């Protein structure tokens, strides 16, 4: 059963074997596994429940309904825009479907530096396979790459850089380019269209528009309480509480630590909210004589991984295509006024690629502000700034090799590179201080990190809080490091594995 906020009778009280907070990768997959194991599952989702009929393919509608803070979520200094879904299905409702397994070197880092157990490539292999089969993850054939992805494929190949074709969780894709705005064709096999309906069929109850505000420990039972929100205004209209012996916090790397901090639990290590990684992202935009139309077609189907972990330090960068929608482009394009307007007029002939840095010496922190909401801070380290410069330079070379007339970085003061010989000078000469270049993150991770040592981590290798038996964090919060790739397959696999362990080790009580 799925209950929208306006249909919830207030005050609402419920009981379950497992209460799950958040319905994205972690929450959705956990709900399916646990309900399938016969547990009574209640899912709470702060965002609304929307279907394809609600998706009109416009940024105005999508940002309003589907994104955290209406796509305006950012670090306190506005230096990094942090894009996350806020709806049933979480970020899988608005992501670009890139489905990649966790790199082996990342998993090895977790084992070596944090004593994480049971999450080696071999351990996760059956989960990766199961998730990929369930979501119909498949690479696109050569002819399906749009002009924007072809820039990377052709440019990188011309430069001799390694490229790959990523899997996508779609069936019957219409190549509309609307993935980031909610798929109007139900072709994206998001958590909202897969795990959630299956969990509901197995008896799970999902309450949408219900924002958890606090978790209280009452002996072996836990009480989750919060506000029911008006679906349109997000103003609280009532209160709810759910009691359960097992609570899974799956509200994302931004909001899970906020909930734990407000509840004053699971933080004997003092690590809750710390160790935030962003997979820090910037972009280059190349202008071409030929038509690119960067918002159309399959948004993300190829990547260049030549420079990821190439120095053996688990860092480096990765290059992917990015669909360009008008408002997002306008935010990112440099400068303002007439020059900015002229850049926008070149939209159909603009190709864009993102550079995603797997952090080595950058880190952030999520705290709770005076209004009880997330406050995000982030500091870039010198090595990662250097990787970002190298990444922008590599992306610029790729664009020129693919035929770009010129290439623009996202520096606030416009930086236009007119020929390849200018790349190094222009990039080294630009300012990389905060707010001097547009930065983004769609992959915030790490704020309740996993590890064997309760003094330096929040959860163990099964995602259970060191401090609180029966309290789990199963979402992007738990990864001990940045992944280096888009996270949805990693998070789904970890969620399925952890939920299986919960099903085997916690008896139900709510009957």
């Amino acid at each position: 059963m799925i209950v929208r906020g306006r249909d919830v009778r207030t005050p609402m009280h419920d009981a379950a074997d497992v209460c799950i907070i958040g319905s994205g990768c972690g929450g959705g997959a956990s709900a399916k596994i646990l309900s399938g194991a016969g547990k009574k599952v209640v899912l709470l989702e702060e965002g609304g429940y929307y279907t394809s009929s609600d998706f009109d393919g416009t940024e105005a509608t999508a940002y309003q309904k589907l994104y955290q803070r209406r796509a305006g979520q950012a670090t306190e200094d506005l230096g990094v825009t942090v894009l996350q879904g806020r709806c049933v299905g979480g970020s899988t409702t608005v992501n670009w479907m890139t489905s990649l397994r966790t790199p082996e070197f990342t998993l090895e880092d977790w084992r070596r530096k944090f004593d994480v157990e049971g999450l080696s490539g071999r351990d996760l292999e059956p989960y990766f396979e199961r998730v990929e089969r369930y979501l119909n993850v498949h690479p696109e054939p050569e002819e399906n790459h749009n002009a924007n992805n072809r820039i990377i494929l052709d440019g990188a190949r011309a430069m001799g850089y390694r490229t790959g074709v990523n899997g996508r969780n779609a069936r019957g894709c219409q190549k509309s380019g609307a993935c980031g705005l909610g798929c109007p064709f139900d072709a994206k096999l998001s958590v909202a269209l897969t795990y959630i309906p299956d969990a509901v069929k197995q008896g799970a109850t999902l309450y949408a528009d219900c924002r958890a505000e606090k978790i209280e420990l009452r002996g072996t039972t836990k009480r989750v309480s919060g506000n029911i929100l008006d679906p349109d205004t997000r103003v609280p209209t009532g209160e709810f509480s759910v009691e359960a012996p097992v609570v899974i916090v799956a509200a994302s790397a931004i909001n899970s630590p906020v909930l734990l901090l407000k509840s004053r639990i699971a933080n004997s290590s003092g690590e809750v909210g710390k160790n935030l990684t962003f997979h820090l992202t910037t972009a280059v935009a190349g202008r071409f004589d030929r038509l690119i139309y960067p918002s159309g077609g399959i948004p993300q189907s190829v990547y260049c991984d030549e420079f990821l972990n190439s120095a053996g330090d688990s860092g480096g960068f990765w290059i992917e295509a990015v669909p360009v929608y008008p408002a997002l482009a306008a935010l990112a394009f440099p400068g303002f006024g007439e020059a900015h307007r002229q850049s926008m007029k070149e939209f159909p002939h603009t190709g864009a690629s993102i550079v995603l840095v797997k952090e080595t010496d950058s880190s952030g922190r999520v705290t709770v502000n005076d209004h009880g909401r997330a406050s995000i801070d982030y500091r870039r380290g010198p090595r990662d700034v250097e990787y970002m410069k190298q990444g922008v330079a590599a992306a610029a070379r790729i664009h020129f090799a693919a035929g770009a007339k010129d290439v623009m970085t996202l520096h606030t003061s416009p930086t236009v590179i007119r020929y390849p010989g200018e790349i190094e000078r222009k990039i080294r000469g630009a300012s990389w201080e905060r707010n001097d270049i547009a930065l983004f993150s769609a992959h915030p991770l790490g704020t309740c990190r996993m590890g064997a040592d309760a003094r330096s981590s929040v959860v163990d290798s099964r995602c259970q809080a060191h401090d609180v038996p029966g309290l789990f964090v199963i979402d992007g919060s738990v990864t001990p490091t940045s992944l280096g790739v888009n996270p949805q397959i990693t998070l789904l696999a970890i969620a399925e594995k952890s939920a299986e362990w919960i099903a085997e080790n916690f008896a139900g009580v709510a009957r």
Partner: protein
Amino acid sequence: MNDMTPPAPMGRRRFLRRSLSGAAALGVASALVPARVRARSRNDAPGKLQFFTEEEYLVFSGAAARLTGHYASGPGNRVDAALRADRFLGTEDPEIQDQIHLLLTIFNSLPAAVLLGFTFSKFIDMDGTAQDKYLEGWMTSSFAFRRTAFQALKRLAMSMYYTDEGAWEEIGYHGIVSPGEGR
């Protein structure tokens, strides 16, 4: 060339908190808004604003015009970004609303113009060229809080302008591609 070096940069909240004493003074200054400006507010601001005061509407409208390059009397100005921002901000969290009010007060204050922009006009009273120069000063300032404030204005202006379908024709955007067309 990185963010690891102290001191910690000033975030929005700290910037605003530290600006409160200045804001109090600016509040006094705003009581001295020239009658000329008030008259223009009454004439030009649309009725029934939900979030902005009339003066705030005019300040943001002016800033949005300069930022987007769509000036009030110019061609292609089919979107009232300020009015859209008014409706958008009217449903924002109270903390964001407070910050935007404060930001616009400071941005348009004479003390800020004198101290930070070395000009003796408030933003709203400047001509277009001076407004561009003033915005450029905020964008490239060595003070992190001014760059943050600029980003806030730019984000709001650009998102309000370009999420409106009226802005799309000029840039050749036709919405999402119909099924099967996407290549």
